[in-house]
């Protein structure tokens, strides 16, 4: 039986512990001393803690770098590279193709391209304010936002339109009408066969297509007496010219009038002959057409008038569509086009009214993001900063990476 001793005192514990620890340390010390001195003498070393700290610092630096790449790359890309939202366009290989309704491209720098039905194109983004668009076939209405480094290039057949900030219509019908450029504002440079040409606001340039002789190019200037917008005037002014191309268009247009079938307008729209549609409507009497034409013709006329610069006629056509065919008008986004039309005319209150109307009727419609974007920009321009900020915040919530997100962030900030 083991005899239990009295509990140890503090001193006993201390002395025993000290003796044991010293014994252990003494046993180990000579060997460790040699190892340590060898390491100090022959290994270039720093304290392990310092090495650990250095490793930690390196690891942190690598982690921060990786995090920076992860977070910064998209932000850098968003800041440095142009983006666009395509509305109503289907992909066809590497190309985009519009369906039966007008489609659109909204670029992140504020530039816009309205694509006529059945048009085909491809877009390559090449810089913060630079894009290369190849119009394979069809018609575009282009508005390029101007920045010091803007460089938009549009290739149409053998021709190239270089833009730094302007608005124009571009048509390329490889097998029929050839190249048609209707300038509405600004100036562009057109390269292609022959020397470069400068085309200014109000002028229309026609160049031959692939089956037409090279001599058939014309540059029409606007009529000084015309009350119409410059682009429309240019188109009209070019009609009586001796241009064979113009005559071809005239004949085609006349054919549309004599046939007087509503299906012809659709064909003309699909082939991009917008001015022919407008002239046909003028010949038949605008009021008569607006009050009697079916919904599909009103939509075609509204689009054709818009593309040819006849904004007033376009607005009346959209309005007639709304008055007479409410459901079709809603489906076609008439309210949106009314809003944009009024905005282009400088009528802010009407534009805001119609954009709001469109958003309430079609909150998730094809043009909702653009309508919301234009709404907060209009509100901001008109000094309604509170409403503009609210609308911008709504835009950011719904389209945080949308084409107007950059502007929305600026407008949404409290002053």
């Amino acid at each position, binding site marked *: 039986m083991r005899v239990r001793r009295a509990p*140890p005192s503090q*001193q006993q514990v201390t002395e025993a512990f000290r003796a*044991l620890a010293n014994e252990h340390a003494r*046993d180990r*010390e000579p060997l460790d001393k040699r190892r340590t001195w060898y390491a100090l003498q022959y290994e270039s070393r720093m*304290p392990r803690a310092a090495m650990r700290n250095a490793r930690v610092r390196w690891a942190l630096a690598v982690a921060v770098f990786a995090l920076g790449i992860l977070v910064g790359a998209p932000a850098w890309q968003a800041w440095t590279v142009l983006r666009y939202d395509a509305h109503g366009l289907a992909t066809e290989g590497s190309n985009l193709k519009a369906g039966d309704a007008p489609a659109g491209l909204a670029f992140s720098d504020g530039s816009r391209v309205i694509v006529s039905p059945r048009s085909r194109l491809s877009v390559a983004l090449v810089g913060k304010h630079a894009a290369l668009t190849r119009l394979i076939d069809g018609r575009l209405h282009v508005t390029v936002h101007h920045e010091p480094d803007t460089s938009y290039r549009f290739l149409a057949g053998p021709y190239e339109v270089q833009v730094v900030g302007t608005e124009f219509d571009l048509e390329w019908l490889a097998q029929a009408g050839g190249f048609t450029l209707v300038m509405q504002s600004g100036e562009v440079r057109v390269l292609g066969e022959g020397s470069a040409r400068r085309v200014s606001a109000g002028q229309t340039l026609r160049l031959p297509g692939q089956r037409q002789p090279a001599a058939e190019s014309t540059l029409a200037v606007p009529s000084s007496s015309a009350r119409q917008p410059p682009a429309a005037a240019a188109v009209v002014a070019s009609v009586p010219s001796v241009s064979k191309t113009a005559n071809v268009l005239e004949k085609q247009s006349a054919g549309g009038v004599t046939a007087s079938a509503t299906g012809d307008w659709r064909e003309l729209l699909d082939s991009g002959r917008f001015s022919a549609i407008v002239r046909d409507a003028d010949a038949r009497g605008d009021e008569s057409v607006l009050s009697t034409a079916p919904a599909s013709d009103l939509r075609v006329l509204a689009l054709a008038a818009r593309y040819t610069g006849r904004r007033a006629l376009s607005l009346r056509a959209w309005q007639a569509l709304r008055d007479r065919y409410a459901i079709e008008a809603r489906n076609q986004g008439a309210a949106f086009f009314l809003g944009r039309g009024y905005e282009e005319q400088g009528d802010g209150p009407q534009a805001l009214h119609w954009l709001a109307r469109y958003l309430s009727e079609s909150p998730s419609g094809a043009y909702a993001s653009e309508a919301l974007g234009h709404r907060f920009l209009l509100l901001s321009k008109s000094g309604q900063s509170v409403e503009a900020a609210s609308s911008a915040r709504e835009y950011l919530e719904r389209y945080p990476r949308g084409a107007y997100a950059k502007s929305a962030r600026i407008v949404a900030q409290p002053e």
Partner: protein
Amino acid sequence: MARITSSKPATHEREEDLHQAITNNQADWQRRAFDEYHRLVHGLLSKTLGPRAEIADLVGDVFVIFFANAQRIRQASAVRSYLVSITMNVARRELRARRRRALLHTLIGWPRDADRDVSPDDPKAKAALLQLSRIVEELSPNERAAFVLHTLENMPVAEVASALGVSESTAKRRVRRANEHILKRVRRNALLADYLVARSGPSHAG
């Protein structure tokens, strides 16, 4: 800088010579300092970190820091206290790192650090030392440093406070807490208590 004085005249002379060598940047001052203080540094680290710790590298760390900064020491009497301060800082940093590693071992299943064999040949002594070191491991790094310097190294409280960079009352409180904890834990372990009593001889106090 902490200032710990040595009471032995011979030690004092050696310290003066060494300080002179350091100040004059003599060729062998590092070797002399290493020979003079290795046992001290090794013992402090061994007692603070436990008998199973690999401390050769940590001793090397202490001397690397010392060699880099020794020529800034203005008084011979401060050389030893400076080394003690460096050693205890390195020991406490290692203790904190060990705790972090232990937490990682628990959380993500990393392998435990390899243990080193305890040196005494006597199996009972080995077991007692291991059990005492486990009890000491329950102390915080600061309490452990105070315990080693005061209780195991017989250093006065003032010098402990100076070496650890705390007030004397703080040092005293840490020493008291550490001693109380160790005594309480030893008394709970009958075998360990009996061994310590038998090893230390007759009781000096109740």
